[in-house]
Structure formats: C-alpha cells, structure tokens
C-alpha cells in the first residue's frame, strides 16, 4: 500500500500543487488539507509546502501557525508522524515551535531563486534516510527569508545531536552554520529551505530532490 501524504493549504500557499505532483510522481498518494479544518484525516505524512501563507505579513508563518490544521499537525508530530516543512513550511514549523530558531531575511536583502549545492550532514531523519553522508544534492532555493538564526546554545544542541541534516556548500543567505535543513529531537519533523519538489523531473534540470522525498514517503509508510 502506498502511503497518503497530506499537503496543507493556507491562503497564500502556492507550492501545494507542486508538492502533490512530485509525491504522486514518486508513487504515493497525495491530498490537500485546508487550513481551517482541524480534521487532517487518515494521512500517513504531512507536507507544509512553500509559498506566502497569509502573505507572509508580519513574519512568515506568524499567522499560519494559529490555523486549526496546525493544531492537528502538532498532535500528529507529537505522536511521531512524519512532517516536512519546505521553505514557507519550515518558517511555519519554527513559528509553531516544532523546530527551534527562526528564519530572517537573506543577507543582501534580496529574494533568491537559484539552484544551490547542498551537502548531506546526517542521514538519520525522515527526509535523508535514503541519502549518504557527504552526498551533494543540486536543488533550487526560492526565498527571501531563509537566513537561519538561533542562539549559540541551540546551534550547539543541533550540532551535538546530529540534527543539522543539510548545509549549503556556498551559503547564499547568511544562514548560521550554513544550515539549509534541520530536524527535531525525535527526527520525525524536518524543515528545509530548498525545494526538493522542484528537482524531481529530468526536464527541470535536476532529480536530486527524489531521494529526499523518497525517504519521506518511506517513513510515512512505516
């Protein structure tokens, strides 16, 4: 049985269909979850997609975190469910407290859309289990607020517990510790700024996003 992945839609989300397309392309089922519904149904994993939930007004994720759907997703995560926040989704996960730190404006104050090279730092997570340490993945970023910021203490904790999953080879946005993606303590909640769903088709220039989303689908199946 292939797992069913729920993809959350807030007003202002825009990468939800792309996530659905990529997930289906890899053989799993995908359904959209409307932000106002507290009922997330029988999903096996959740993606919080990219975009500009609530316009990113005030701060990215600041309004979205209060959605009824988010309450259920926090529950789901606490019960061990696999949750991935991509880009805006990462920002929502930090705002709601499932992941530590915050995402500030890029250094240079410019929106950045371009392919970057990521290095796999840890394979121990729902998103990286099918990669190898040191693998270099070519995946696009697409954000204004991707500059990961946290306290020294948090950074040490992330480092010491192998919770930094992906780093940038050439830091594009000023992120602390070159961080592109991290996970929570139980390793079932992951946030990353790059867009793996944009790197899953030969016509789109890279298929390096596939092992990441495969890992995720696998974990949802478990």
């Amino acid at each position: 049985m292939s797992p069913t992945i729920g993809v959350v839609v807030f007003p202002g989300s825009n990468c939800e269909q792309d996530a659905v397309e990529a997930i289906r392309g890899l053989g799993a089922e995908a359904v959209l979850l409307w932000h106002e519904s507290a009922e997330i149904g029988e999903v096996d994993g959740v993606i919080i997609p990219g975009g500009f939930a609530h316009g990113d007004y005030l701060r990215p994720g600041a309004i979205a975190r209060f959605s009824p759907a988010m309450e259920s997703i926090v529950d789901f995560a606490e019960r061990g469910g696999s949750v991935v926040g991509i880009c805006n989704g990462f920002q929502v996960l930090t705002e709601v407290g499932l992941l530590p730190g915050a995402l500030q404006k890029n250094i240079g104050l410019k929106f950045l859309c371009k392919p970057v090279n990521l290095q796999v730092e840890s394979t121990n997570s729902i998103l990286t289990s099918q990669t190898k340490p040191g693998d270099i993945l070519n995946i696009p970023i697409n954000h204004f607020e991707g500059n990961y910021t946290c306290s020294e203490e948090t950074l040490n904790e992330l480092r010491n517990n192998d919770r930094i999953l992906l780093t940038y080879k050439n830091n594009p946005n000023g992120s602390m510790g070159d961080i592109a993606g991290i996970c929570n303590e139980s390793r079932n909640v992951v946030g990353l700024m790059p867009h793996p769903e944009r790197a899953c088709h030969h016509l789109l220039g890279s298929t390096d996003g596939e092992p990441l989303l495969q890992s995720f689908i696998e974990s949802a199946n478990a």
Partner: protein
Amino acid sequence: MRYQASVEVRLREGIADPQGSTIENATSKLGFEGISNVRVGKSIRFTLESANEKAAHKTVQELCDRFLTNPVIEDATIIIQGIE
C-alpha cells in the same frame, strides 16, 4: 475607552540584523560617514478599546507575546496613550 497603542518590535541584542547591515553598507557607499550600529525593527500602531489603561496595556502585552513578536529573536516596547 479608546487607546492608541504603539509597539516597536526590535531584534534582541546579539541577534544579527541583515537589514541593518545592508542599510549600513549602503549609507557609506552613498557618502554618509560615521553611521554605525544600524538596527531595523517594526513599528506597529493601532487603536484599541479597553476598560482602562492598565487593561489596554495587558492586552497589548499579550498580543506581543503571542503574535506580534517572535520571542526567539525579538522583543517589544509598548506605548499606550488614551484618545480623548
């Protein structure tokens, strides 16, 4: 009673400020000398109905804690004034 609230949201000390450093760099390129420590925050103003000033302050404080700031990196200064 109606009050005018003004909230200044600032990055906590020690947290890097990409907007501030970008502005600082730009000023020196534009020929402005001697400008340093640029920090950029948000200023949010609104009116609110409240029983009294104390209650107004409490509401705004709660709004800041829950919503207007991200306590991981920001804090806020609140000013409340009565509107006649």
